[in-house]
């Protein structure tokens, strides 16, 4: 289960605050996954006291509203990514960035599909730069627009693994070392995916899948 509470002294009208929280929740906590199980209790609640002294925001399109929402998004992202980083048994945070999709929603869907793949998560734990599993997980994402595999570019840790749908002759040892070094310090494994030239951009965060995940959950009363 994930729980999150955010407080702020921003002065935002209740209706604008509600819209902000919905958008921010979509881009942050709804873009993380550790094990694919949606809890009965997941909740994000955000309070705005108005005590900062700023003039109340009533227009969600005002520059001040944009600034507040940007900061609200940042703190929620930090808290959400911390959950994925601390995934049961995890040795790394796993970030996927998708660009070139038709819209942001499609990009987020692809990114989440990739970070949810158990096979890919296990490969990261085993330091295997398995681009085939990345391509596969991108391909079965339930997007509104079809994914064209001939436009698929994949990179891991800045190392290009696939270009225009074709596998690239990359330095496998270097890519494996990237995974080994990142997981050894509980860092962030980054996968960048391009799926075309659309304006859609999205991110998602997960973690690797280790032996400890099974151990923890086999011993936790459900």
């Amino acid at each position: 289960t994930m729980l999150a509470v955010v407080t702020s002294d921003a002065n935002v009208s209740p209706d604008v605050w509600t819209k902000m929280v919905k958008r921010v929740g979509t881009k942050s906590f709804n873009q993380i996954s550790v094990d694919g199980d949606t809890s009965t209790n997941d909740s994000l609640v955000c309070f705005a006291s108005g005590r900062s002294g700023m003039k109340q925001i009533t227009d969600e399109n005002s520059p001040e509203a944009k600034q507040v929402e940007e900061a609200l998004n940042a703190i929620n992202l930090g808290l959400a990514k911390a959950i994925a980083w601390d995934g049961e048994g995890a040795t790394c945070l796993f970030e996927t960035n998708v660009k070139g999709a038709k819209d942001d929603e499609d990009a987020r869907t692809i990114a989440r599909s990739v970070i949810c793949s158990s096979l890919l998560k296990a490969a990261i734990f085993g330091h295997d730069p398995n681009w085939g599993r990345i391509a596969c997980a991108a391909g079965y994402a339930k997007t509104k627009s079809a994914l064209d595999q001939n436009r698929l570019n994949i990179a891991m840790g800045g190392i290009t693994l696939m270009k225009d749908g074709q596998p690239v002759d990359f330095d496998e040892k270097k890519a494996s070392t990237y995974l080994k070094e990142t997981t050894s310090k509980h860092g962030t494994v980054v996968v960048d995916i391009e799926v075309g030239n659309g304006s859609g951009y999205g991110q998602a965060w997960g973690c690797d899948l280790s032996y400890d995940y099974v151990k923890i959950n086999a011993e936790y009363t459900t």
Partner: protein
Amino acid sequence: ELAHAPIEKQLLPNGPWKVIPNAGVTAPEGFQVSAYKAGLRKSGTRADCALIVADESCSCAGVFTLNAVCAAPVQFCKKQLEVKSTSRAILINAGQANAATGVLGDEDAMTCAKAVSDVTGLDSSDVLLMSTGVIGRRIKMDKFVPAIQALGEHLERSDAASMAAATSICTTDVVRKTLAIEVDINGTKVKFGGMSKGSGMIHPNMG
């Protein structure tokens, strides 16, 4: 005590904000918090509940799991926030999730909100709830209700209390997750504080 998640160093996106070191939900003006060990956990070595109370009515919004089998506190919060988009307090417990607990779970949730109301003087319509822990188990109300009294009596605005609260809500988490930032908006310093928990059963789909 749990170690602190590397949010400031590794996880917070870059932007025009400044991190407020070692701070959490009471960094913004107008909030107090407390944490307490009620004895709800299977292994009772840590605090297991927290209460956040705002000095005045706040704009308040939430998103909640879309799992059709949702916990009593989730249903409680959704009803509260459907009626009005303001609130003053939130009570959180670890140990038992109060999910799949039927009518008795709903009654427990209402009892918890009333206990907060009794100790703080707030209207119970200004109280929200969160629970985490074992699904299918009712909250140990005989231990929790007296703890709510203690929570209400020990509210304070301090970084230490914020950290204690962030730790108290954790279950299988290895680290506590809390953060505070400050951003300048037209010359006014606006602060944001937060805490989260979660490690397993994580695939949020909230709306």
